[in-house]
């Protein structure tokens, strides 16, 4: 029972758990057992639903950055340090979130203020 065996066991344990959990979540998202209804829809103040392009772009940016970063980690894992994320990527992601939040705030709050409903 060497230290190497313990490290190997930890490796399999952690990735077994994370991988298993990710696989279950992905499977349930795909077959509808995790609710994704209205994922791409926003809600106005009157409760009406509308298709929301800002949510679509946020998902695309999120998946893009996530895949890019995981790929970076796989390539540089031997260095023993988490790879940094470039400022440009962070600015892009921040912009994507700002568009999402701005759109949401506009539809739920400002749109009604402009109409004088609040």
């Amino acid at each position, binding site marked *: 029972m060497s230290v190497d065996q313990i490290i190997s066991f930890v490796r399999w*344990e952690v990735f077994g*758990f994370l991988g298993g959990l990710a696989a279950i979540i992905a499977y*349930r998202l795909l077959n509808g057992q995790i609710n994704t209804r209205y994922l791409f829809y926003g809600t106005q*103040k009157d409760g009406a639903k509308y298709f929301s392009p800002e949510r679509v772009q946020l998902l695309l940016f999120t998946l893009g950055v996530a895949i890019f970063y995981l790929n970076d980690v796989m390539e540089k894992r031997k260095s023993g340090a988490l790879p940094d994320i470039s400022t440009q990527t962070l600015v892009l992601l921040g912009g994507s979130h700002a568009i999402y939040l701005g759109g949401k705030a506009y539809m739920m709050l400002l749109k009604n203020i402009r109409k004088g409903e609040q």
Partner: protein
Amino acid sequence: MLLLLLLQATQSAPPPVSPTVINLAAWVALGFLGLMGIAILYYVFAGKIDLGGLISEPSGEASMSRFQLLIFTFVIAASFFLIVVSKSGFPDPIPQGVLVLLGISSSSYLVSKGIQASSKQGLGPQESSVKVKGSQTTTTLGGQTIQFQADVAGLSDDTVTWTLDPPTGRGTIDQKGLYTPPPATQTDAHGKKVVIQAAAKEDVSVKDTVTIELL
């Protein structure tokens, strides 16, 4: 005697622990954590830990801000553990870019909830309802079929059960909401009314009705 033993234990240096004991303790701890992980995965897989609302709002609608937070949490956690097992130690330091990424993701989620809380819709659950819509409220014996629609709000399952009152003698309705009036030969139904009801399958107490007059 016990006091003397305690005094001796506090005054003397702790005896060295053998590597065998340390290894054994490590295996016991890892075994315990492994069993816990397996139990959690089993409960999630078997549905005893319900993940159905993992990215849902209290209203039952999915939330993009929760979804992106879930994705980034998984990615950074998996990356962190990958580095830990590759290096056999904690990555030091955690890059600022990673911290900023987690900050953007988390604060976007929080601001999103703040916007919702500032709105009339709020974070509370929507009142569930069913609304039946049809093109007409009168028809003739042997006349054309009428297609009804049921709009379900505030429930995760938007399917309904269609029924008639009275259930027989005044036409039929299928489970797609298509009403067929009685044939022209069924004169006893002339001038009568039939109530068409749509009840949500998820909660049968949530329902709506329309009345059709048979001319």
